[in-house]
């Protein structure tokens, strides 16, 4: 932040530097991937032959439809989990609302691939639940069979996106919208169908398309569940086993990007011009009513059942990390701390690497995010929006694609003095993490900047502060809450990112936690230590999430207090 303020050559210079960074580490690698996908591998001439090959190979066709099926089914299952919860919180005076809010956060603090193996032990064919079901009822339900497993793990992890967006949409409906319909004679289901549902629809679609995007792009979960006949795993396997010149990885990348863009576009269309923030001053949200006793019992039953399912990866992971042997039994045979001792004793570099990479990436994100936010919203630079578009565009680039792009682009680029290609230097992992998290950090910084009234800046300038001094002394301090929250969020998500990382780790000693978990989980003997490592990751992310929540809440309270004071005068 201070570097920005001291940069000698003005906003335009900063903008150019940022533009060059995004060009080199986002645009060129992605362009390269697309280019290679449309290039004949032998002659280098432009061609569609790779795509023809792709769709003529039954494995790829199957992978394509599997990915599509898994993504769509995950949306369905996630909706089934999220909809009742959203309805309870917004429609009833329900004490369990806090439980539901917690439910909305818990899954997000554990990346899906971390819990995947634990879920297999709980819900697999020989997992705890099926052992019990078999003993009691003589049945076996294939929760985790093949694609089912991916769908279950992904939807448990990503349903909060739908829960949060849908609840927000429902809460944004002004009570008068509903009352006016009642006043005109509508009630019950008709009222819901004609007024409440259409008004909440954009929020739901936005959440659902995010889930689709995340699941369609996810590499870690299918890999850990050993489901390889999906697009992202195929891309990874082609590049890592056949080699960087195999065109299929690139074709898959293009397809992944296209579908990501499609999902983002859908979500954009859903929200565009339909931000039905209909709440006026005074009471917002739908009419809430009290629950009858049996209704309350039912609601609690649903919430607690959901909570159990949502917590099952966490429970499973905890058991696994403290267990000795856990196989063909409901619970582990015995409990031990050995897994943690092993992880901390022998592979502590996973943890230190993670802290270093995620910390650096998050720092880059907030510095760039603040700079871009300021340039876009507070200066008149020509083409400044492009910085925003570019940085936000990273949303549409799956980690695998970015990883492949970096490998392809930076393999020939030697790092000075180190005598190795940039693509295998650990710094490239940091850059990949930074680029992938930049859209989120940028939104946090933009939100923070919009809280700072332009008049506050003008007052500083009026009193003789230059632009840079103003940014340094007024804007950045006032944005600090949002910047810190952005930093922590970037840090937490970067700490457990696997898909780009897995492509870019070239030496075990450079690997972060997520990669370590992946490696450990490959073998039955490694599951215990892998789970211990997973627990450490969960704790890091959990603490970070909590901190960011605290920072945001404090900011909200302060603003509310200021508003109250200002209003009271």
């Amino acid at each position, binding site marked *: 932040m201070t570097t920005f303020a001291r940069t000698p050559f003005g906003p335009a210079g900063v903008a150019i530097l940022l533009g060059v960074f995004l060009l080199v580490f986002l645009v060129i690698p992605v362009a390269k991937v697309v280019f290679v996908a449309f290039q004949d591998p032998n002659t280098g001439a432009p061609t569609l032959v790779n795509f023809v090959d792709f769709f003529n190979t039954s494995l790829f066709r199957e992978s394509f439809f599997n990915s599509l099926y898994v993504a769509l089914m995950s949306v369905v299952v996630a909706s089934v989990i999220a909809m009742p919860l959203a309805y309870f919180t917004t429609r009833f005076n329900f004490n369990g609302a806090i439980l539901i809010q917690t439910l909305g956060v818990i899954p997000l603090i554990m990346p899906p691939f971390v819990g995947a193996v634990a879920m297999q032990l709980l819900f697999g064919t020989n997992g705890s639940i099926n052992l019990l079901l078999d003993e009691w009822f003589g049945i076996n339900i294939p929760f985790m069979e093949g694609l089912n497993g991916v769908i279950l793990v992904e939807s448990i992890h990503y349903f909060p996106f739908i829960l949060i967006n849908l609840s927000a949409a429902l809460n944004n409906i002004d009570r*008068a919208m509903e*009352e006016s319909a009642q*006043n*005109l*004679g509508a009630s019950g289901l008709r009222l819901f169908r004609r007024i409440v549902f*259409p008004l909440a629809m954009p929020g739901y679609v936005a959440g659902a398309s995010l889930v689709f995007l995340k699941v369609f792009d996810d590499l870690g979960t299918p890999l850990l569940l050993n489901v390889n006949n999906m697009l992202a795993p195929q891309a990874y396997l082609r590049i890592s086993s056949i080699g960087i010149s195999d065109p299929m990885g690139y074709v898959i990348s293009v397809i992944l990007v296209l579908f990501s863009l499609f999902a983002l576009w859908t979500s954009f269309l859903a929200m565009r011009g339909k931000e*039905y923030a209909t709440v*006026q001053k005074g009471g917002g949200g739908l009419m809430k009513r009290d629950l009858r006793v049996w209704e309350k019992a039912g609601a609690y039953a649903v919430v607690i059942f959901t909570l159990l399912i949502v917590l099952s990866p966490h429970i499973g992971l905890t058991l696994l990390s403290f267990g000795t042997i856990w196989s063909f039994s409901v619970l582990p045979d015995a409990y031990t701390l050995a897994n943690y001792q092993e992880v901390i004793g022998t592979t502590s570099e996973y943890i230190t690497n993670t802290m270093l990479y995620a910390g650096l990436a998050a720092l880059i994100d907030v510095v760039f995010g603040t700079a871009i936010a300021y340039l876009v919203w507070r200066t008149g630079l020509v083409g400044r929006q492009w910085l925003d578009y570019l940085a936000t565009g990273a949303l549409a680039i799956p980690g695998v694609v970015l990883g492949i792009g970096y490998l392809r682009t930076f393999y020939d680029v030697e790092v000075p003095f180190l005598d190795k290609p940039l693509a295998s230097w650990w710094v490239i992992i940091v850059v990949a993490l930074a680029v992938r998290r930049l859209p989120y950090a940028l939104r946090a910084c933009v939100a923070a900047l919009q809280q700072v009234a332009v008049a506050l800046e003008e007052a500083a300038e009026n009193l003789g502060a230059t632009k840079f001094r103003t940014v340094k002394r007024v804007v950045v301090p006032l944005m600090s809450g949002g910047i810190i929250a952005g930093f922590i969020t970037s840090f937490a998500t970067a700490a457990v990112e696997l898909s780009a990382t897995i492509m870019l780790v070239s030496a075990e000693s450079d690997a972060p936690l997520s990669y370590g978990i992946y490696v450990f989980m490959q073998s039955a003997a490694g599951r215990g230590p892998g789970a211990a490592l997973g627990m450490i990751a969960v704790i890091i992310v959990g603490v970070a999430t909590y901190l960011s929540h605290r920072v945001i809440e404090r900011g909200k309270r302060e603003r509310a207090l200021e508003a109250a004071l200002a209003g009271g005068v």
Partner: protein
Amino acid sequence: MAERGPVSVRIEDVHVSFGRTRVLTGVSLHIEPGEFFAFLGPSGSGKSTLLRAIAGFGPTPAGRILIGDQDVTTLPPWKRNVGMVFQSYALWPHMTVRKNVAFGLEERKVAAAEIRRRVDAALELVGLSEFGERRPAQLSGGQQQRVALARTVVVEPRVLLLDEPLSNLDANLRVQMRRDILELQRKLALTTIFVTHDQEEANTMSDRMAVLNDGVIQQVGVPMQLYDRPANLFVADFLGTANVLEGRFAVEHGRSRFRDESGIEMPINDVVKYESGAVMFRPQNLTIQSPGSGHAAGIVPLPGTVQYVEFLGSIVRYAVAVGPHVILVDASHRQGDRVFPQDAAVEVGVDPACVITLAQ
């Protein structure tokens, strides 16, 4: 469904509480068929709660609410056929103007052709025939207000309820809309109740009004009557600027006489039954002149000095220090009239006929 002719609204001893907070206490009112009635009061006075109770929103009140002869106290909102225009208009953003207006008719299972005809008529009535296919967001505030009105009256409700109908409009539009709503109400001969915190709105629009404060009706009557003969200090103050002097009343020779601690005295035109209380007189009912220039018969002179002068256009407002009191006097301004400067010695003339007595 629609009854012939306008109906009355009777509110009998209604109490409403939100949890432990009492919002309305012992409210009783009889609103005549076809009347344009206003609930006037400051925010938090319970006026919106009362309106919403008539529409069926909010907690079920204790007491009875009758529309026509029907007791609607426990009826859900969608069975009342009472039209309400919300303060925020509450137009559904996902429907076109036409769809919004047709909604209530569709809920009433009216035939499609009939719906088309009535929606057209309603849009025509509010002058928005051209705007049927627009979305609410594409309309100005005034147009949205008209759509909300059309949407409500198209179902031919028994009673029309308007919640702060003008509060979201700018000043010019407000005056226009005031007339339009009144004209519409007369045309439809619809019993109408509207809520406002603005006494000018209530004065200009309503046949009668009820002034509410702290959940209790303070006074009911014709606007001018309430302004001139307020029943208590709250009404006197809320409806306009008031000079209030506290003191004691004594009966002399069959007439009451007011006397305050600083020695101000004046005869009262009727017999006051209480001993201590206050007198109230409005600034425009007073006269101001140079000392010793003589008074009309019966006028009580109060000598004082001008503390400050405010020129307000059509009137000049003087603050005159009379003993320990500051009395406001409005003199209508005519070009060339003499204006008393600050610190000038003056005499304020009080006409006992314009003095209101208030119990403590």
